[in-house]
């Protein structure tokens, strides 16, 4: 039998104005197990806490009920109070008689009556409480960064600079990501490669950073501080250690049918290729879909010309298993497929391009060596129409577009328009827009410069249709400001397509048990206060994987994620959640249902020797990893034999509360 103390707080007049606190304290004296009951003006004050401490010692209390404000406010406070008087912190229950009683009721009698019931429920629960001790688990001092774009690179550099080992897993043959494909960056118009490639090199040369390119996460187990990842390093058919990146093989390869992904498939490349000149690692890769040797067994020319003897057609996927303490998701984005937008004739004319394709066209290392020409006939265009919000802020057709604003399109379109006008003043540039969104440092100035200084023709309104008319693209749109239809015979149309999370994100989210929103962006633990953490402990978010953002924001978030990772890896051990699930092995069937609903993979099974009235022998039993369990309780309800229970919120605790409330 517990010896329970009840402490009723006035909270000044917050509680005392609508709850007769003395009556509550008095009523609780007749509850079974209550040996002490009192009231005080401010229980959370130093005097109030001292009163609690004294009562615990004087009356030998085994648990306390504090009738006060929400436990979300002061549960932690009173737990500390209890600990300082020698009680286990989980022998404290709070009856919320402020937010859920005094503040919502006006009638004193009613408020008092309800407060008594709430206090009784807390006492009833406390009778079933047991002291809980949180466990600890060690921390593996290595981080895994998934994605080697600017977000992943920046996080990896910051973590590595703090002295921790970092592995970057990149699914492409090179790190660099989307930023490597960009020509210039807004609002400064500096060359993207010029600022990115030094960072790539720095990462490659950092003694604490290990780049695993052309690789993906295959499976993951474990929990915060103790993840075990299996990484699948795809067969490159080139020995990374031997290849010097000389590029001879790429020139000799007779296959010329492969599309160049780096150049947004605007040109062809050989079956063996190096993605781009500054690729890291600067190593060739063979595309097995295109390689004649791998498909038909005939050819092998690259192998013959490779003086480093790096070509290896026998190479297989390799599985690497490593331990990590923290995982950073930096999987980035891709532009949505524009082929769904045939009202803009994307499928009908090669001269309708997406912005990222346009970016490659404008780039000196791109398919046209930086010459602005029409993809169809390589002729210089004179009229270019940019269409914004293609697939962004699209609420009516979920199949086609995205409900959110992709955030970067207004600015990069202004950049494209400005670059075109600067380089080719003879080209007329029109931009159809819904809103020009420019809330960033120097952003609005940049946009105004495009309009005022470079004479870009901004038309507020959307394009209804683009049709191919001979060599021209007939653009029909509306000008909302002038209230008229606009017809432009353009040479090129550029679509500012929405961006969406990389298609690998969904599977990764499942593997990490990290939650995602309906658009497949990873969800942050708190939208305001924990923006770079996933709700899954030990998983952090960096870059567009979490939501659309531009480069400076990405880099800032990457640094923030790194700070969180460092904060975690600094610790030698972690304190676990004390309110965890626990399987009563005498009742567990080992049926595996709990495992299926556990969002954290915290449940595994063991063969155990059981001696109970119902069973003697070896049986499969569920075992909860207390370091992983977050205490949601999904397993407890799935368990048909109620073998699984949740400490701190046990079946009997909750039922006791129910009984007391309904009494």
């Amino acid at each position, binding site marked *: 039998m517990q010896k329970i103390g009840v402490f009723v707080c006035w909270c000044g007049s917050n509680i005392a104005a609508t709850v007769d606190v003395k009556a509550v304290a008095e009523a609780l004296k*007749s509850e*079974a197990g209550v040996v002490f009951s009192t009231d005080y003006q401010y229980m959370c004050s130093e005097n109030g806490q001292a009163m609690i401490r004294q009562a615990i010692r004087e009356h030998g209390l085994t648990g306390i009920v504090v009738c006060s404000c929400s436990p979300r406010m002061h549960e932690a406070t009173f737990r500390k109070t209890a600990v300082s008087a020698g009680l286990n912190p989980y022998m404290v229950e709070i009856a919320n008689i402020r937010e859920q009683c005094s503040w919502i009721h006006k009638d004193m009698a009613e408020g008092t009556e309800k407060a008594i019931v709430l206090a009784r429920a807390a006492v009833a629960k406390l009778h079933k409480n047991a002291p809980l001790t949180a466990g600890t688990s060690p921390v593996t001092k290595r981080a895994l960064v998934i994605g080697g774009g600017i977000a992943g690179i920046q996080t990896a550099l910051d973590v590595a600079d703090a002295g921790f080992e970092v592995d970057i897993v990149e699914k492409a043959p090179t790190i660099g990501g989307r930023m490597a494909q960009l020509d210039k960056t807004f609002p400064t118009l500096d060359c993207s490669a010029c600022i990115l490639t030094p960072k790539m090199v720095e990462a490659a040369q950092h003694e604490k950073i290990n780049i695993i390119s052309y690789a993906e996460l295959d499976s993951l187990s474990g929990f915060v501080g103790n993840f075990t990842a299996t990484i699948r390093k795809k067969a490159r058919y080139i020995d990374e250690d031997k290849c010097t990146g000389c590029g001879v093989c790429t020139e000799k390869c007779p296959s010329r049918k492969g599309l160049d992904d780096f150049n947004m498939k605007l040109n062809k490349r050989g079956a063996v290729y190096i993605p781009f000149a500054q690729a890291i690692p600067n190593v060739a890769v063979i595309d097995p879909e295109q390689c004649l040797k791998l498909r038909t067994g005939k050819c092998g020319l690259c192998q013959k010309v490779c003086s480093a003897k790096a070509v290896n057609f026998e190479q297989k996927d390799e599985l690497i298993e490593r331990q990590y303490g923290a995982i950073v998701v930096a999987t980035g984005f891709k532009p949505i497929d524009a082929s769904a937008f045939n009202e803009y004739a994307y499928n009908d004319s090669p001269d309708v391009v997406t912005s990222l394709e346009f970016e490659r066209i404008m780039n000196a290392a791109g398919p046209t060596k930086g010459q602005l020409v029409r993809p169809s006939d390589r002729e210089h265009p004179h009229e270019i129409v940019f269409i914004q919000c293609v697939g962004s802020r699209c609420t009516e057709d979920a199949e086609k577009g995205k409900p959110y604003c992709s955030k970067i399109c207004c600015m990069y379109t202004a950049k494209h328009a400005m670059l075109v006008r600067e380089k080719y003043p003879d080209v007329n540039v029109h931009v159809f827009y819904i809103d020009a969104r420019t809330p960033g440092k120097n952003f609005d100035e940049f946009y105004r410069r495009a309009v005022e200084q470079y004479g870009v023709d901004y038309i507020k309104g959307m394009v209804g249709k683009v049709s191919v008319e001979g060599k021209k693209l007939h653009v029909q749109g509306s000008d909302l400001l002038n209230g008229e239809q606009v017809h432009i015979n353009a040479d090129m149309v550029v679509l500012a397509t929405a961006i969406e999370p990389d298609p690998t994100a969904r599977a990764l989210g499942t593997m990490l048990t990290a939650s995602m929103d309906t658009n497949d962006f990873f969800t942050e633990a708190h939208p305001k206060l924990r923006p770079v953490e996933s709700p899954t402990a030990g998983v952090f978010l960096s870059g567009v994987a979490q939501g659309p953002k531009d480069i400076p924001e990405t880099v800032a978030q990457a640094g923030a994620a790194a700070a969180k990772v460092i904060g975690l890896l600094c610790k030698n051990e972690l304190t676990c959640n004390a309110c965890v699930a626990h399987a009563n092995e005498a009742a567990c069937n080992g049926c595996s249902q709990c495992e299926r609903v556990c969002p954290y993979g915290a449940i595994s099974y063991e063969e155990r020797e059981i001696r109970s*009235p119902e069973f003697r022998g070896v049986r499969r039993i569920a075992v909860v990893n207390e370091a992983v369990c977050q205490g949601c309780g999904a397993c407890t309800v799935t368990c048909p034999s109620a073998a699984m229970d949740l400490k701190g919120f046990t079946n009997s605790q909750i039922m006791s509360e129910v*009984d007391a409330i*309904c*009494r």
Partner: protein
Amino acid sequence: MMKKLPLEQLPAFLKGISETKTLVAPVEKGGQVNFDLWTEDSTLRLDVLKTVKSAKGAFFPQVEDIVHFQMQGKNIDIHPAEVLTEDFVLFGVRACDARSFELLDRVFLSDPTDPFYAARRAHGTVVTLACNRPEETCFCTNFGIDGADPAGDLSAWMTEDTLYFQANTEKGAALVAGLADCDDGEITETQNSIREILNKLPLSNLNLTGFEGDHLKERFDDPRWEELSRGCLGCGTCTFVCPTCQCYDVKDFDSGNGIRRFRCWDSCMFSDFTLMAHGTNRPTQKERFRQRFMHKLVYFPSNNDGIYSCVGCGRCLEKCPQSNHIVNVIKTLGVKEDA
């Protein structure tokens, strides 16, 4: 002197009884026939030989309050449950169930007497009914029970148009005092035809040799229990339909305002039967299964002048989900003793 009642007057007769006493009889509810409160609206089913549950519930109900501990703050008031003080009539009991009351009496009326049971026995009048059409699952004859001559306070025989009564006690006689007298010989034909069938019953000649008390150890250690008990589900169907099973558990129900202590039927087939702090002393279904039949066929007779705690009503034969019943046990373990 016997009494008789034309069958068409039976409803009026029953109504007459029910006006002053509680009347319990085999009535149909939800497609099943059980002993239950008779009212004018009830569907009386005297044609059904075996009610699902036996008649024992009239004296030993499945659930029965014993005491109530009422909480007032930290004070506890104790209110013992009251014993029955009103008379009732239990109508249409067959010979087997009638015998079962004698067996239950040996348990509940021996020292210390069970006051709840004793009160019900004292206030109850048992009206039995001869078994016109015995069934293939009946084996009462093995226990010296005569379906043609049932016991009880008042015995009854039914022909096509008439109900005949023979009072065996004053309580019984009082019930039929107002009916017309008749000659004892009027039921002879009915009795003869019943006995003719009873003799033809496939299970009428079970060999019970080997179940006497002095064979206790041999029966207990018989290795065939293992095989016999294999199919047993450990449910309580046999126990709860059985007229002679008398085990109960005492449970507390916390109503929030106090504790209601009640007793309820228990079954030795259940895994938590007589569960104790150390666990259970019958850890497998073999032991539980053995217990039930050892009790009926060996322990009870050895403590009760050789009387078996089975009346051969055959309910368990019809109801066991696995067809794994006392006749299997008797035949498997009993016959071999002869050889």
